């Protein structure tokens, strides 16, 4: 087996409880996003666009669903005989089954997988963030600095620092210390949960961490603090583009709405850095004579007989005559009847909505209404959050 300079380990374990009805059947990284994608498409596409062709996907739950979505990795150009994408759930071992006890433990339990490729570097990323990033540039910086670990940082609004892992760095971007969700942050530089490690260094820390009964086996809480304590060379890599954790209904809705700007910060139309996804092979969308679409993203296979305004429609959505969709996200294959009004609502995949319904509340400050997957809303119903 040919040696790999770098391989990626993608943490896709999140149950995503805060996404409520959307993650009843799906792992969080498989939640639809942006009219065409699933959240995990962004990190997988970042990997292949960065020239990383080996990605282990660590999942705690439902490996078959992720297996079935990822397949042999063709959509992301990760269908490689040597490498490619591999789903790594916790297996039943001869001494029984073990859950992954934390992010670091998930990597530790898959040392066998990693060593097959004998990598020099290892990239650890999360499957539930929306951003476009060239990991190769980060790797080149890591090498140039001779770092043992490099952590990607982004400036967040000061009032939100309490939600993130915050780094303190010196003038040369060496990391001085790290605080998880500090009350009084010293900086507003948040960790994006993107790490590059020298594999030999990380391996020794993982091994020691595994033997520590008091560890929670987490990168942010255990591995990084221990490395700082032992004065390893940790380097900050600053990122200035669009990055969003879509872990809540609000942030998921916002990140979708961000795409509807005339010139969004996250440009999906950039042909130099395409986001890849499984293609459903649907025909071009059809906008009927009486239909209309404004300030919206609409995917293939949709049939629009009503009007769609400032909304995101995934593939195969049908919007009936005289219906109005506004400020909403309609996931794949949702069928909407005639004369329906939908405001500021997220509708899960496969839901059917009868005629004359009103869903959600109008207005910029209205709360978001959420309809789960495969729901059935009978005609003449009113639903709101």
């Amino acid at each position, binding site marked *: 087996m040919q040696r790999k300079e770098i391989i990626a380990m993608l943490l896709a374990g999140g149950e995503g409880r805060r996404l409520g009805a959307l993650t009843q059947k799906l792992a969080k990284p498989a939640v639809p996003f*942006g*009219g*065409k994608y699933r959240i995990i498409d962004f990190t997988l596409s970042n990997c292949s666009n960065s020239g990383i062709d080996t990605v282990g996907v660590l999942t705690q739950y439902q490996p078959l669903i992720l297996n079935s979505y990822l397949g042999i990795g*063709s*959509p992301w150009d990760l269908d490689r005989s040597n490498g490619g994408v591999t789903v790594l759930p916790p297996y039943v071992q001869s001494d029984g089954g073990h859950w992954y006890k934390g992010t670091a433990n998930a990597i530790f339990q898959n040392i066998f997988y990693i060593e097959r490729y004998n990598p020099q570097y290892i990239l650890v990323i999360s499957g539930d963030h929306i951003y476009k990033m060239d990991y190769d540039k980060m790797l080149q910086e890591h090498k140039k600095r001779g770092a043992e670990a490099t952590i990607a940082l982004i400036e967040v609004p000061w009032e939100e620092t309490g939600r993130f892992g915050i780094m303190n760095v010196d003038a040369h971007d060496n990391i001085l210390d790290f605080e998880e969700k500090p009350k009084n942050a010293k900086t507003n530089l948040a960790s994006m949960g993107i790490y590059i490690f020298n594999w030999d260094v990380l391996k020794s820390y993982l091994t020691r961490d595994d033997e520590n009964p008091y560890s929670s086996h987490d990168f942010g809480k255990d591995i990084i603090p221990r490395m700082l304590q032992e004065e390893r060379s940790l380097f900050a890599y600053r990122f200035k583009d669009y990055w969003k954790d879509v872990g809540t209904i609000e942030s998921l809705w916002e990140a979708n709405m961000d795409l509807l700007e*005339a010139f969004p910060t996250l440009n*999906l*139309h950039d042909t130099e850095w*395409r*986001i*890849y*996804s499984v*293609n*459903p*092979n*649907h*025909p*071009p*969308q*059809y*906008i*009927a*004579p*009486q*239909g*209309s*679409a*404004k*300030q*919206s*993203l*609409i*995917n*293939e296979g949709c*049939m629009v007989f009503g009007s*769609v305004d400032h909304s*995101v*429609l995934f593939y195969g959505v049908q919007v009936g005559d005289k219906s109005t969709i506004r400020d909403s996200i309609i996931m794949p294959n949702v069928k909407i009847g005639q004369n329906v009004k939908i405001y500021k609502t997220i509708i899960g995949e496969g839901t059917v909505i009868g005629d004359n319904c009103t869903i959600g509340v109008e207005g910029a400050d209205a709360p978001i209404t959420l309809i789960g997957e495969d729901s059935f809303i009978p005609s003449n119903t009113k639903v709101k959050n």
Partner: protein
Amino acid sequence: MKNVIGVINLGKPHSMLDELTRNRSIASVPFGGRYRLIDFTLSNMANTGISKVAVFTLNKSRSLMDHLGSGKEWQLDRKIGGLFMLPPAITFPTADYKGDLQNFYGHIDYFNRSKEEYVIVCRSHMVCNVNYSDALQFHIDSEADITMLYNRLDPDTVDLSNCYQLEVDEHHRVRQMSSDADEINTGNVYMESFIINRTLLVEMIEHCIAHEQYDLTESLIMQNIDTFQVNAYQHEGHLSIINSTTSYYNQSMRLLNPDVWRGLFFQPGLVYTKIKDEPPSKYIETADVNNSLIANGCIVQGRVENSILFRGVKVAKGATIRNSILMQECEIGEGAVVENMILDKEVCIKRGQTLLGNASEPVVITKRSTI
């Protein structure tokens, strides 16, 4: 469908689409907002589960090869079986090319070395969505030598010039066929697709070549209607026949009918094509779109009406597109007007330009022109 070879016969010169086929074979003419004509036949074969397909090409096949690649989209990137591109065995000036059977004969080894019992031969200008399983079962059950697929169309409303029509008896047997509507005008249109046993096909090709007959339809089928048992199987779904620029335009516009859209693109199977990984189409505040088909990757700021936009088309503010077909990556500048036109790939219409075609005779703008 381990037992069937699919054959797509592009070996018959076919230049009826003028400008659209100047640098491409008819099989690679873009159609329906994101497809090439060959996608329909190839997807029909994939949906039937056929994993061995030969494409007999003639010339101008560069864009076709780029489009098909290793056949991955149609699950034909295989070690066992898979996609075979078979150009005429010899390089020749077109004058020496005597007909499609010559090309079949040049690759007779392909058929001889195969083990499959049946061959389905199709062309690419008859656009339909069909699963061949039933037709094959019909072929086997009726013990036919050849089974021809046909579709019933109304000869009074559809242009059937260049088509063969069939006379079929109550036992589904073909009694007569002709491309002259004065002879036969039943509306039973031969879809230029037929099923035949492989060994019989080889025998018949060799027989035709030995007698210096080179036209697949006329020499191999039409002449043998009395000698062999030639049956007909009716396909019930939608059929678009593309045999002129006008029919290309009209058949494209029929896709704006939601029933045709559903019938051609979803039933019985999906249509596969080369994936471009374009994002969903984006409608800006000023967009005003109706009765149109829009493929992914478009950015629409202007007015689009009764039109088809292929992948990656950009329509600027104040521009108007009406009754037109805009192929991949066309760009329409601010305030431009395009009416009754076919714009080939990557045409750029500058701001303020006006292009008005004629509804009955659509004008084609050459690929990559800037106006």
